[in-house]
C-alpha cells in the first residue's frame, strides 16, 4: 500500500508530469486561460489516462513479451483508439459533457503525457494496481498544474505586463516559478 501511495504522490507532485517532465505542455499553454476549462481538460485527461493504463497493462502482460519491437506502435494505436472510444461513449451517455469537452478529447491523442505514462509504466514493470495509481497520480498532477496556471493567468489579465513579455514568454516564466515551487516537494516521502 505504501508503494501505491508513493507512486501516486510521486507522479502528482514530486515528479509532476507538467512541471518536472514537461508533459502535456500544449494544453498547458493553450487551454490554461480559464479555471473551468482547465478543470474539464484535467478530467478528460484522467479518464483517458485510466483507460490507457489498463490497455497498456494488458499489452505489456500478454502481447509485448513476444514482440517487444511493437511496443511503441501498439501503445500509440491503443491510445488513439482509447481516445476514440472514450469520445463515442461520452457522446452517447452524456451529450452535455461531450459538448463541454469539445475539441479537448481528440487533442489528448497527441498529448505526450498519455504515451509517457504508458511507456514508463511498462519500463518500470508496474503491476495492474501500480499502473492505475500511476495514471491517477499523473492525471491529478496534470490537473493541478493546469488549474494553478489558469488561476494565475486569470489574474494576469488585470496586470500591466511589459510589452515584450506578453504572450507565451510570461507564461513560461510563471511555469518556471511554479516548477521551482514544486521542487520543494522533493524528499516528501523519504525522510
Amino acid at each position: 500500500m505504501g508503494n501505491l501511495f508513493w507512486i501516486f504522490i510521486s507522479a502528482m507532485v514530486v515528479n509532476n508530469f507538467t512541471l518536472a517532465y514537461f508533459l502535456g505542455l500544449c494544453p498547458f499553454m493553450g487551454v490554461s486561460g480559464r479555471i473551468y476549462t482547465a478543470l474539464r481538460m484535467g478530467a478528460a485527461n484522467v479518464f483517458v489516462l485510466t483507460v490507457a493504463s489498463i490497455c497498456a497493462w494488458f499489452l505489456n502482460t500478454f502481447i509485448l513479451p513476444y514482440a517487444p519491437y511493437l511496443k511503441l506502435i501498439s501503445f500509440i494505436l491503443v491510445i488513439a483508439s482509447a481516445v476514440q472510444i472514450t469520445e463515442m461513449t461520452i457522446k452517447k451517455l452524456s451529450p452535455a459533457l461531450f459538448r463541454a469537452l469539445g475539441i479537448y478529447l481528440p487533442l489528448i491523442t497527441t498529448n505526450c503525457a498519455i504515451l509517457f505514462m504508458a511507456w514508463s509504466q511498462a519500463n518500470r514493470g508496474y503491476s495492474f494496481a501500480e499502473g492505475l495509481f500511476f495514471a491517477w497520480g499523473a492525471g491529478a498532477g496534470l490537473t493541478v498544474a493546469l488549474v494553478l496556471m489558469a488561476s494565475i493567468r486569470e489574474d494576469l489579465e488585470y496586470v500591466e505586463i511589459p510589452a515584450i513579455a506578453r504572450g507565451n514568454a510570461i507564461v513560461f516564466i510563471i511555469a518556471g516559478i511554479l516548477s521551482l515551487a514544486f521542487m520543494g516537494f522533493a524528499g516528501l516521502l523519504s525522510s
Partner: protein
Amino acid sequence: MSGNGGSDVTSGQRVLPQASSQRPEVPSWRLLVTLGSAGALAGLLLVFVYYLTQPAIQAYKARMLREAVQEVLKGPQRWDTLYVYEGALTPQPPADVDAASLEMVFLGYGADGERLGFAISGAEPGFQDLIELIFGYDPQAGTVIGMKVLANKETPGLGDKIVKDSAFVAEFDGPQAPLAGVKSGRATGAANEVDMITGATISSRTVIRIINNRLERLRPILEAYLEEAS
C-alpha cells in the same frame, strides 16, 4: 502555407468526417488494405532492425552488469547467477517459470575458488525519484564490501554525490551490517557506521536503508544457501 502546423493537426482530425462526405466514398476494403499493408511493412522493418540491434544492446547490458558486479565484489574471478525462487536460492529455476521475472543475486568467487560474497541489487524512493543500486555483501563476516549506484535522479551537485563523492562510496568498503548512518564529524568509531554526506542526508540515508532492507529480507535465504552448499 502558414506555419500553424499545430492547429493543422487538430483541425485535420476534426475535419475528417466532412472531408469524406464531400469526396466519393472510398470502399472500406481500401482503408483496410492501406492500414494492413502499412502495418505489415512497418512490422517487417522493425523485426529486421530488432535483430540487427539486439546483439549490441544485450552485450551492453551484460557489460554494465559485469562491471557493476566486478566493482562491488572487488574483482571476483568468476560469479554465478542465483535466482530467488520460493524463498530459496537456486541456480536454475523450473522451466515453466520466466527466469527474467525472478529476483537475482550474484555469488562471486576469488582466485582460489573461495566465496567472496553476494552482489545484491535494490531500489527505493530517494529525494527525487527511485535510487537503484547494487552492493556486495560478505555473509561470513557479515560486512558490506562495496556499493554502486546504478540509476538516480537526485539533485545535481547535492544528492548525486552518492555517486560522485568517492569518499562516501568508499564508506561502504567493509562496514558491519546492518549499517547505521551518522552525520559527518559525529562518528564514534563503531564498526557499522557510515558517514553521510552533508547536504544530501536524505539521499545518503536512502542508500543505507536500501542495503539494510534488502539484507534483512535476503540474509536468511543467503545463509541457508551457503549452509546447504558447504
